[in-house]
């Protein structure tokens, strides 16, 4: 690409934390670069950059997006009336990608921009030594060639009908979906918000795979919250939240531990955890030969 082929810029005198570039609408910025390259094509509406910092930062404040890494390169493009899209991003040296809807809303409010209606707040974080991303406006793929961790935390309230004919009640929900592995990739909706089942689409992990799902919901009028706290470890794993049957598949030395309302531990060769759109674990299915399975409900009683 001509844009970045010849460009090598040195910003040795740039004090840490000072801005390098901010888009005209304030919806995208590159900052804290100490050296690198950049090309802004005003006719193709694309921006390419490559640089280093301690760490260098890419921010999209109206989405609460922040990427920091010592080394970073990428390409963005803009469409009229829409926020810029990161079409490619390669970062290394200790990468943190975070998206925080509360930060986004605080920015939008301070900028006098309209606030989107969000039933839930969302904080998504991904960390690894190396992250490669490519995508479009509503679908992106994040690849991790090195050990990585990810977490989607969401909280909010919703109106639910406890049973047919009953009056709706308010339910407060906090959900956390964490994962880690030696390498892998995920696909996600870059503009998605809500719980992990709404932000993430698919994932494929390899080596020391670990999932942790925590869901704490409290309905008005009830004394105790409903708690789901499931951890799952395996040699390989993948998840698919795109269909109506959202599932997490685990293969090899599977260990599932539940410390929520149903506590217990299960070891198996393979297993599938099914969740609903609210990230509630609906069932756990083993395939192959379970080695050990012990679960208990609150108040005792194994099953």
């Amino acid at each position, binding site marked *: 690409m001509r*844009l970045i082929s*010849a*460009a*090598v*810029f*040195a*910003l*040795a*005198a*740039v*004090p840490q934390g*000072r*801005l*390098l*570039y*901010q*888009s*005209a*609408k*304030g919806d*995208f910025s590159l900052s804290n670069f100490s050296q*690198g*390259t*950049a*090309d*802004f*094509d*005003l*006719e193709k*509406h694309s921006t390419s950059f490559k640089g280093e910092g301690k760490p260098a930062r890419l921010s999209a404040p109206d989405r609460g997006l922040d990427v920091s890494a010592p080394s970073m390169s990428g390409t963005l493009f*803009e469409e009229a009336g829409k926020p810029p899209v990161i079409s490619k991003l390669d970062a290394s040296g200790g990468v943190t990608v975070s998206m925080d809807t509360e930060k986004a809303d605080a920015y939008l409010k301070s900028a006098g921009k309209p606030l989107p209606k969000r039933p839930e707040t969302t904080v998504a974080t991904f960390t690894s030594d190396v992250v490669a991303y490519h995508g479009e406006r509503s679908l992106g793929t994040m690849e991790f060639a090195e050990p990585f961790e990810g977490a989607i935390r969401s909280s909010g309230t919703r109106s639910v009908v406890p049973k047919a004919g009953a009056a709706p009640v308010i339910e407060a929900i906090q959900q956390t979906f964490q994962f880690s592995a030696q390498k892998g990739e995920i696909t996600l909706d870059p503009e998605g918000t809500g719980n992990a089942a709404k932000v993430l689409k698919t994932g494929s992990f390899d080596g020391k795979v670990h999932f942790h799902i925590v869901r704490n919901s409290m309905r008005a009028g009830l004394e105790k919250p409903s708690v789901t706290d499931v951890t799952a470890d395996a040699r390989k794993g993948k998840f698919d939240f795109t269909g109506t049957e959202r599932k997490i598949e685990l293969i090899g030395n599977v260990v599932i531990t539940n410390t929520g309302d149903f506590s217990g531990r299960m070891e198996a060769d393979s297993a599938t955890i099914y969740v609903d759109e609210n990230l509630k674990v609906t069932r756990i299915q083993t395939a192959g030969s379970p080695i050990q399975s012990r679960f208990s409900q609150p108040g005792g009683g194994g099953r």
Partner: protein
Amino acid sequence: MKRLATMLLLPTLAIAGGQAVFAYRDAKGDVTLQAGSGRFEQGADGVQKFFAKSSVDLRSRLQNIRMQAQAIAVAVIQNKAGKSELKSAHASGGVTIAKTGTSGQSTVESSSADATMSGDVADVVLTGPTRLRSSGGKGGSVYATGSGGTARLDTRAKGGSGLKGAMLGGPVRVEATQSGGGKLIATGNRLTADDGMRALTLSGNVKVDGSKSGAFGSLQNVSKVTLHLNEKGEVQSIQVNS
């Protein structure tokens, strides 16, 4: 030769509106000069030298250059075709050099200017506050200011604005039009313009600001930036490098 030139020159000395007018026009009108006063020397090497003062207006038709200043010392030669051309000029006091290309025009303004014509170009050394304006003739234009520098004019004007390139010392300021609309203002310590003013490189503490109506935002704390212009003279891309 000296006699011929003197004969052409003498009839043009006149009184206009009570003020003495020093005027020269060669036989074919290729070089013309008007001023409040002046003198003429014919060198042994065939070079005609004019020393003009007070609202001097010098034009070279073949080189498509117009130079205006309070004082101009100019050397005129005959080219191989026997036509008059400027060989060099030293101008001082509110200097304006205007150049018209085939698809645009350019203007150079400075406190003083030393121009040397060679081949198809005129190299001009500019002293004092300097302004450059280059227009592509299709809407886009570049306006640059600095504290002296150099400019290279295309004396054959095959295309473009007639300004082949320039270099200005700082602080420099460039005002240009963004492709798609909106202004763009870039500042720095030094400006180098190449490729017929289609590549403008600013260096040293560079800052670039686009207008809210344009595609470009704001860029700062960079050591080197090149603005690439399209055929219309609009900024089509901005490259940050060093």
